[in-house]
């Protein structure tokens, strides 16, 4: 590496003052991570560690985006209040979170990453496929961890392709597959109508579902349509699907208002199939109740997180601690409207597990520690699901329970019907 006459001269240049507000401190001491094992990576001292998040905090996806910050902030806020998190090297550090808004714009996400990469120890928890993909290559080149991010894109869980990445939530294929398997095991014949979001989210769900029902003679897909996430209405799709006479409706939809109006519209058309809903748009309070879901013979979804609104978990210790911390440390006053809040809380717990195994304050060591977690039952996780990071091709959470709506919350089910 060549030498530079930067940092000090830079201060003299008038230009810097114009940019000063948005600039990081001068210099590039933190370049490339420590070569010698002992030298610490950027963003970590003996007292504290800083984590970075780029996620949508304004715009159309700001609802779930805000949750991805709130959960992890609440988790470490509560830990910091107790003194900090114990690391594997025997030191106790407080965890600071630096969250920036990317408005779901990949370009802004990359800019946020550039801003944070030399200040934070690791990037985590950010929501969105394009916004995480935008700086994935750069993170690999800079050897900055991009871990436990909220996208079901399988690329982030491919260790060869993405050595510095790890997804948190199950890949979309997993969720579709889980429901497909349940349906294939049914003793009856079923006709399935499919509606999916026209992007990797919808495609992933459908791909997983179809792979699970392949070879099952009792299942027939009779109609398959798509919609755009920016649509204001899916009435026409529902009208067409209702006409197919399907008795099962696989609806891979991630937009809350459209999901509600789909539930309402099918009733108006007097079409009453069993529904499958994705994990992020199946909230009992925010979606099923206003959608009038009680009218349907069955509403199925997949989950690995306890729903805090569900009466079954009202007295649950995890849930109570979580809700209290969310209010106190997460800047989140309302009851969580998106499961991303719970997921983000689990990200915090998973990070703590990795920190506990870290023997050196380096990003390499952190990645090693993070990839060594097996069967960790994070708080808020449902019975039968766990965090396992050692499996190539799978995100941190790949186990799911299929659940059925019981009018108030969800029950885990083993069979369809």
């Amino acid at each position: 590496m060549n030498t530079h006459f930067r940092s000090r001269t830079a201060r003299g240049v008038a230009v810097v003052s114009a940019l000063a507000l948005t600039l990081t401190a001068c210099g590039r001491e933190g370049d490339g991570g420590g070569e010698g094992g002992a030298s610490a990576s950027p963003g970590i001292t003996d007292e504290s560690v800083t984590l970075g998040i780029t996620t949508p905090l304004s715009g159309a996806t700001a609802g779930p985006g805000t949750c991805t910050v709130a959960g992890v902030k609440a988790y470490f806020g509560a830990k910091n209040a107790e003194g900090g998190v114990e690391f594997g090297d025997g030191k106790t550090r407080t965890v600071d979170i630096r969250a920036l808004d990317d408005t779901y714009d990949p370009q802004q996400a990359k800019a946020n990453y550039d801003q944070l990469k030399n200040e934070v120890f690791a990037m985590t928890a950010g929501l969105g496929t394009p916004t995480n993909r935008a700086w994935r290559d750069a993170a690999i080149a800079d050897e900055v961890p991009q871990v436990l991010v909220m996208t079901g894109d399988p690329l982030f869980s491919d260790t060869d392709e993405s050595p510095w990445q790890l997804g948190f939530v199950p890949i979309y294929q997993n969720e579709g597959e889980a429901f497909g398997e349940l349906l294939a095991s049914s003793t009856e014949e079923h006709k399935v109508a499919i509606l999916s979001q026209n992007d990797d989210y919808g495609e992933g769900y459908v791909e997983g579902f179809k792979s699970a029902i392949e070879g099952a003679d009792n299942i027939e897909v009779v109609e398959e349509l798509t919609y755009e996430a920016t649509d204001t209405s899916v009435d026409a799709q529902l009208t067409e699907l209702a006409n197919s006479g399907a008795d099962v409706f696989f609806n891979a939809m991630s937009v809350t208002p459209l999901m509600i109006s789909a539930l309402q519209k099918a009733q108006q058309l007097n079409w009453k199939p069993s529904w499958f809903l994705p994990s992020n748009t199946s909230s009992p309070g925010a979606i099923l109740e206003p959608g009038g879901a009680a009218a349907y013979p069955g509403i199925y979804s997949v989950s690995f997180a306890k729903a805090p609104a569900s009466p079954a978990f009202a007295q649950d210790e995890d849930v109570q601690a979580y809700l209290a911390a969310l209010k106190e440390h997460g800047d989140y006053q309302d009851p969580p409207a998106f499961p991303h809040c719970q997921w983000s809380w689990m990200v915090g717990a998973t990070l703590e597990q990795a920190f506990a195994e870290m023997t050196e304050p380096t990003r390499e060591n952190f990645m090693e520690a993070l990839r060594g977690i097996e069967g960790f039952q994070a708080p808020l996780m449902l019975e039968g699901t766990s965090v396992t990071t050692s499996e190539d091709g799978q995100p941190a959470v790949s186990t799911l329970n299929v659940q059925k709506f019981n009018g108030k919350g969800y029950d885990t089910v083993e069979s369809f019907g």
Partner: protein
Amino acid sequence: MGTFIQLVVDGLSTGSVYAAIALAIVLVHQATGLINFAQGGMAVLAAYFAWWLTNQGLPLIVAILLSIVFSFALGAVVERWLMRRFERGDPDTAVVATIGLLTLITGIAGWLWTYNNQQFPSLFPLDTVSFLGVSVSIRSIGTTAVIVVAMILLQALFVGTKLGLALRAVAINPQSAAFSGLPVGRLLMVGWGLAAVLGAVAGALVAPQLTLTPGMLDNALVYALAAVILGGLTSPVGVVVAAWIIGVLENLAAVYVPFIGYDLKVAVPFILLFVVLIVRPQGLFGRKTVVRV
């Protein structure tokens, strides 16, 4: 056949959502000669206000009426203290100012009420009416009915009343309007106030279906703009009809033209718009304006 009619009916009800915003845009344009990108944002703010009032225990209809009053004041204030600075200047600058206003309002709504989806109670029951094998929700019928009433009132305002004539005179030529003794400033405020009222009604009508979020009307705005241009900037009837045409054609194209499908159906209104404008630059129902050199 049943599906076809159902698709048409669905399209009409979606079109009514676009029409609601489009009418408010037309009103502002008639009154001030501007396209207001923040029209939807102001409607969202009014809807939040009504929603907040219902949470304080007020009955829905009272809350909506209060939000209408609030909107009139908001529109007038925005015109007087913000937009007046830009009205005589470069029109592009004025449009960008309304974009800034939209961003600001969205930000305020997100700050006060979060970006989460809030349930807005509906004025109309969700029950359905069926005839000829077609089912329509009472909510859609109600929404459409209110839009039609608003359209008729607006048309009457422009064509048949002194206020409407004065508003238009101010928009077309403020100087000569002032010379002929019209209170230009106050008329501009009234124009914006009335448009905001229309927006508030629209917001309350569509919020139950779209659920209340700060960006609730962002996606509808583009369609509303298309309807405004397609129908002709000067005609309330024109834009409502155009909005319905857009809603229906989109559905039919998605279902019956396999190449278009549900992903590219959004192109349909713009292709239609383009064809119409080539033939009739003033829009379907618009009046031709003569520009002197």
